[in-house]
């Protein structure tokens, strides 16, 4: 087991680790985007304060509703003014009239629940309409599904690539000792007796490769994170801790397991004597 084979394994596990982090972050981002989806409930103009209060209670009682925020007519107008910015004077055309209805912003625990809840809300008294940007949400969900699926496929693919590299590396050590293996077979060694030392070597190789890969991934990720936060403070990225603990454990486990599996595979040919 040389420095070269450890670093080969380390590099492939490093790539695997980086892609795992990209996958985890994409997943996190998808979850974040989904959680931003909310139902906006517009009330009819004839709804008085009592109705609004009752409505708020009813919304909170719905299954899966996490928060209900009431947006009063005046607040809605203010928000609109802010959005117009310098073109605020456009509003003067309205005079003292406030065309905005009272509304509620409803957030739910599982984004998929929105579809069930929205029609129910729509049926409630004094509700004008309950909107959640259906098409946008549909697109978002299909996008996050693709991202997740693609991520899983990519991580699996890279695991196989790592397995291939490790089993090739170990094939070289087995090849160097093939005479010994053959002699062991001739004097009556069982396959497991022959296999053990090679499995241990493969596992050690995978383990040390994983230690280096894990250390590098951790350093790279924390550096990258501080760079990104410096410019995009609120971008929803996973924090270094405890994320890296899971990633490092994953890399160690995969590295060691793949090391054992790689030895097992590369030995098969030589044991057939």
């Amino acid at each position, binding site marked *: 087991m040389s420095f070269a084979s450890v670093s080969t394994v380390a590099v492939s596990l490093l790539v695997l680790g980086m892609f795992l982090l990209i996958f985890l972050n994409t997943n996190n981002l998808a979850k974040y985007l989904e959680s931003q989806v909310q139902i906006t409930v517009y009330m009819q103009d004839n709804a008085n304060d009592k109705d609004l209060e009752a409505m708020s209670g009813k919304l909170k009682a719905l299954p899966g509703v996490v928060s209900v925020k009431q947006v009063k007519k005046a607040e809605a107008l203010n928000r609109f003014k802010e959005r117009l910015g310098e073109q605020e004077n456009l509003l003067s055309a309205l005079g003292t009239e406030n065309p905005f209805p009272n509304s509620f912003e409803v957030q739910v625990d599982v984004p998929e629940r929105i579809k069930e809840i929205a029609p129910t809300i729509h049926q409630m008294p004094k509700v004008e309409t309950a909107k959640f940007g259906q098409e946008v949400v549909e697109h978002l969900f299909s996008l996050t599904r693709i991202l997740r699926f693609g991520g899983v496929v990519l991580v699996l693919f890279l695991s196989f690539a790592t397995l291939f590299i490790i089993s090739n590396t170990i094939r070289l050590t087995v090849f160097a000792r093939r005479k010994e293996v053959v002699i062991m077979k001739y004097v*009556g060694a069982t396959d497991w007796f022959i296999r053990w030392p090679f499995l241990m070597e493969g596992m050690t190789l995978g383990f040390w490769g994983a230690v280096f890969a894990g250390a590098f991934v951790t350093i790279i990720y924390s550096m990258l994170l501080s760079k990104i936060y410096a410019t995009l403070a609120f971008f929803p990225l996973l924090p270094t801790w405890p994320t890296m603990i899971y990633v490092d454990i994953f890399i160690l486990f995969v590295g060691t397991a793949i090391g054992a599996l790689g030895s097992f595979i590369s030995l098969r040919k030589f044991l057939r004597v």
Partner: protein
Amino acid sequence: MLLMTDVSKTYPGGNVALKEVNIHIQPGEFVFVVGPSGAGKSTFIKMLFREVLPTTGTILVNGVDILALKPREIPYMRRQLGIIFQDYRLLPDRTVYDNVAFAMQVIETPYRKIKRRVLNVLDLVGLRRRANSYPNELSGGEQQRIAIARAIVNDPLLVIADEPTGNLDPETGMEIMQIFSEINENGTTIVMATHDKDIVDSMGKRVVAIEKGRIVRDERNGVYGYES
């Protein structure tokens, strides 16, 4: 000890190596297998330790049908055999002692038994004083003697030797045969493929001649019978 019944071997591609071979070898016999190159000697020898499987026929070694063995039973069958090759097949990075002890470690013999037995066997082949040398420091004859020590260290019932003197000069070859005789006198069955006329003629043992895949001659106190 060894019973082959109607054994034939056709290699992929149609090359017939052995045809309807029948042979019975009693415990304690010393048998030479002779014949021209390509006659099937090597195939015959390799079948005894199950490196080559026959296309048809049965092979019983010590009463066990070695073709019916499950893969995990094969190592235990081989532990009853001692195999010796023309090219010695020693491990160059291990000492003489370790090369011999290796065969015992592999079958998980307790450590204290290994030491005594290895030194005994090295005595038998006359190489105890070279126990700490490496194979490449030894002559061909000495290397073959280590290979013999390794083959007999586990007290096999049957020793199989494929051209053991093929790489040695005649005098050294005779010394090797002396060791084989001693092993045989202790009751171990020996089957040896060889090209060496002088050795076969001087030993006066059973000779089985194979030509074109068939046994053409099987004589007690036989001779080599070919021009050497």
